[in-house]
C-alpha cells in the first residue's frame, strides 16, 4: 500500500521528519492502538492518535459525558453531555481524520473481557483513573506481551511509564494496589485540566514512537512532573526480578479483579 496524494499532504509534517518519513507514516496507518478510558488522558491521546493517522483506534469507556468532564476531556463538547463517551469520541476522531477506523467498546474492562479486547492491538494506553483497573491493564498486558503506557495524574502532578516486554512493569514500582481506605476520595482529588492534556499527549507520543520504532521509550523510567513548578524528572526503575507478574517466578498467572474503591462523588 502506498500513500495517496491527500495522505502525503495531510501527513507532510510527519513525513518530512527524518525519523518518520513515508515508511514511518505507513507504519502508523497500519497500526492499531487501544485507548482504555475516554477521559482526561484518553481524550487528548485519542485526538493526537487520530490526527496522526493510526489506522485503527479502539476506545473503551462505560460512561456518559458529564458536564464536569469538559474542563479537561477535550474530545467531548458541550452538546455531548449525557451521550456515551465512546460515541462522542468516535464522532470527533472520524471528523478529524477519515483514514482512522474507530472501534468503540461501551463497557468497563474487567478480568473476563480485557484479554480478548487487547489481543488485536499493537499498543495499549491506560487512560483510566482507578487502581483496580490500572493493575488489571498491567497484568493483562504483561501476560499477553503487549506494550502499554501507564499514566497517572493528581492535582498538578503527572507520572507515566511505558511497559515493553522484558522491561519493568507497573507492579515493579507498585507491587500491590493501595489499601482501600487509603485512596483519597474523588472529592479530594482535583486536577488541572491542562495537566491531563500534557500527560495524555505524552502517552500518545509513546504509542507513536513505539509504532515507528524510533527513539527511546519511557521503558525502565518513570517520567514525573509537577506542573505547579513545571518541573520534569525521569526516575530510573529496575525490573524487579521478584515481581509478582513479570518476575522470574510470577505468583500471578491469571487475571484478578481487585475490589473497586468506594466513591461518594458522581464522576
Amino acid at each position: 500500500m502506498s500513500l495517496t496524494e491527500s495522505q502525503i499532504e495531510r501527513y507532510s509534517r510527519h513525513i518530512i521528519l527524518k525519523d518518520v518519513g513515508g515508511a514511518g507514516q505507513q507504519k502508523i496507518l497500519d497500526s492499531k492502538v487501544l485507548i482504555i478510558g475516554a477521559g482526561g488522558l484518553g481524550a487528548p491521546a485519542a485526538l493526537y492518535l487520530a490526527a496522526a493517522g493510526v489506522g485503527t483506534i479502539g476506545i473503551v469507556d462505560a460512561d456518559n459525558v458529564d458536564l464536569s468532564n469538559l474542563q479537561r476531556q477535550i474530545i467531548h463538547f458541550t452538546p455531548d453531555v449525557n451521550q456515551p463517551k465512546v460515541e462522542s469520541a468516535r464522532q470527533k476522531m472520524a471528523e478529524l481524520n477519515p483514514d482512522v477506523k474507530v472501534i468503540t467498546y461501551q463497557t468497563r474492562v474487567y478480568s473476563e473481557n480485557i484479554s480478548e479486547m487487547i489481543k488485536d492491538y499493537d499498543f495499549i494506553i491506560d487512560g483510566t483513573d482507578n487502581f483496580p483497573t490500572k493493575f488489571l491493564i498491567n497484568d493483562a498486558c504483561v501476560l499477553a506481551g503487549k506494550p502499554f503506557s501507564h499514566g497517572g495524574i493528581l492535582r498538578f502532578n503527572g507520572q507515566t511509564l511505558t511497559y515493553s516486554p522484558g522491561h519493568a512493569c507497573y507492579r515493579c514500582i507498585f507491587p500491590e494496589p493501595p489499601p482501600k481506605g487509603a485512596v483519597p476520595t474523588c472529592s479530594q482529588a482535583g486536577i488541572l485540566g491542562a495537566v491531563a492534556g500534557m500527560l495524555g499527549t505524552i502517552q500518545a507520543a509513546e504509542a507513536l514512537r513505539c509504532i515507528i520504532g524510533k527513539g527511546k521509550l519511557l521503558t525502565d523510567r518513570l517520567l514525573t512532573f509537577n506542573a505547579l513548578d513545571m518541573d520534569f524528572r525521569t526516575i530510573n526503575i529496575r525490573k524487579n526480578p521478584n515481581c509478582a507478574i513479570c518476575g522470574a517466578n510470577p505468583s500471578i498467572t491469571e487475571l484478578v479483579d481487585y475490589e473497586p474503591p468506594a466513591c461518594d462523588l458522581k464522576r
Partner: protein
Amino acid sequence: MNLIISGKSEEVSLNEGTVLELLKVKKVEMPEMVSVELNGNILRQHEYAATTVKEGDQIEFLYFMGGGSLNCYE
C-alpha cells in the same frame, strides 16, 4: 544526615534511621500511597521498618496516581 531525595541533596534531621522514620521526618502524608525507591531498588512496605538509610543514599518517593476523570465506581 545528607540524603539525595527526589534528585536533590538534602540535610535530614535523622542520624541513623529507618525508611519508616524517614517517612515521618519528611512528613509524607499517607505513606501507604507511596512507593519508596532506595538506591534504585523499590522497597516493599513491610521492609520500611527494617531498612536503614545511610548518608548519601538516594531516595525517591513515588506516589500512586490515578486519573483526573473522577470516573468512580458507583
